[in-house]
């Protein structure tokens, strides 16, 4: 279904990013997953070759402009310019607003939001030339609902949604779509950190009565990258078991 596509997934070691990498690979795409460490990149590369998929794991720090530019250039030389970019890499540095340290604010904004500007800019040239391309940004339900203790994270994700709409308007005429996916609570290391009472409170707010699975987010990413989604642009699609409805 996605043969010939070169898909770059940032933050592909674990959780949703890992599931997205897998689903794209199974759909026949060449997948490049990024990690911040050599060992992380090697683990992604190992998984890809073990499964007989096409692609590689690469080291990239999306928080650093030079790392992104060089990394995407190298991918272009080795596999061809990315035709699909999935901006998944993200961090949390939770804390109450009144006590939030400047470095916790800056790091979340830089890694989650400014990174999307960097990676998107770096892949756009190739997509403009190809007259086709897909950029898929991972937002979060908290971008809309807000979340106490996540002022920085929610701001970064709400920023991503605004960026998604603006960029979509700029490049739509060149056959490029830019969309966001806003997952609710998904079974990942990020949500496993919660204690039982937090978990129960969370479940009571989800009509589906369960957490989502990473694959349920990844399937949407694959759809958005497909030909069938060519007319969906600038949109944020929620995947949250009904906990927040537009």
């Amino acid at each position, binding site marked *: 279904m996605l043969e010939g596509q070169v898909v770059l997934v940032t933050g592909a070691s674990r959780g949703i990013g890992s599931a997205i990498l897998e689903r794209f690979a199974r759909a026949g795409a060449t997948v490049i997953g990024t990690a911040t460490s050599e060992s992380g990149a090697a683990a992604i590369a190992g998984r890809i070759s073990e499964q007989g998929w096409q692609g590689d794991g690469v080291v990239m720090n999306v928080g650093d402009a030079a790392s992104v530019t060089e990394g995407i250039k190298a991918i272009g030389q080795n596999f061809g310019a990315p035709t699909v970019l999935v901006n998944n890499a993200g961090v949390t540095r939770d804390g109450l607003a009144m006590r939030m340290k400047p470095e916790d604010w800056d790091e979340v904004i830089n890694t989650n939001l400014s990174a999307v500007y960097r990676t998107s800019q770096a892949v756009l*040239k190739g997509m403009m*030339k190809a007259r086709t391309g897909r950029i898929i940004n991972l937002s979060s339900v908290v971008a809309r609902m807000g979340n106490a203790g996540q002022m920085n994270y929610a701001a970064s994700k709400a920023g991503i949604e605004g960026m998604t709409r603006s960029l979509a308007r*700029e*490049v739509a*005429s060149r056959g490029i779509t830019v969309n966001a996916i806003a997952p609710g609570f998904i079974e990942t290391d990020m949500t496993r950190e919660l204690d039982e009472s937090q978990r129960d409170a969370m479940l009571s707010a989800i009509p589906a009565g369960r957490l989502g699975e990473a694959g349920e987010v990844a399937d949407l990413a694959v759809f958005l990258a497909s030909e069938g989604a060519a007319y969906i642009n600038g949109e944020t699609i929620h995947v949250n078991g009904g906990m927040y409805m537009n």
Partner: protein
Amino acid sequence: MSTVEERVKKIVCEQLGVKESEVQSTSSFVEDLGADSLDTVELVMALEEEFETEIPDEEAEKLTTVKDAVDYIESHSS
């Protein structure tokens, strides 16, 4: 070998979808040839590729006519 002007005009035609007869050396990309801002960015990208050069953003902004582009390339080619 074509002249720089001929090569620039050819790229302008390809990028902006205009006929060669419409492109004069004084033609403005935006006002005469109907380019929008995204077209001009793509045009600069195509010129960079054709002439194997890098045009810095602050220079690229000044290239508003065919002549501007030709002059820039001629003065920056070795």
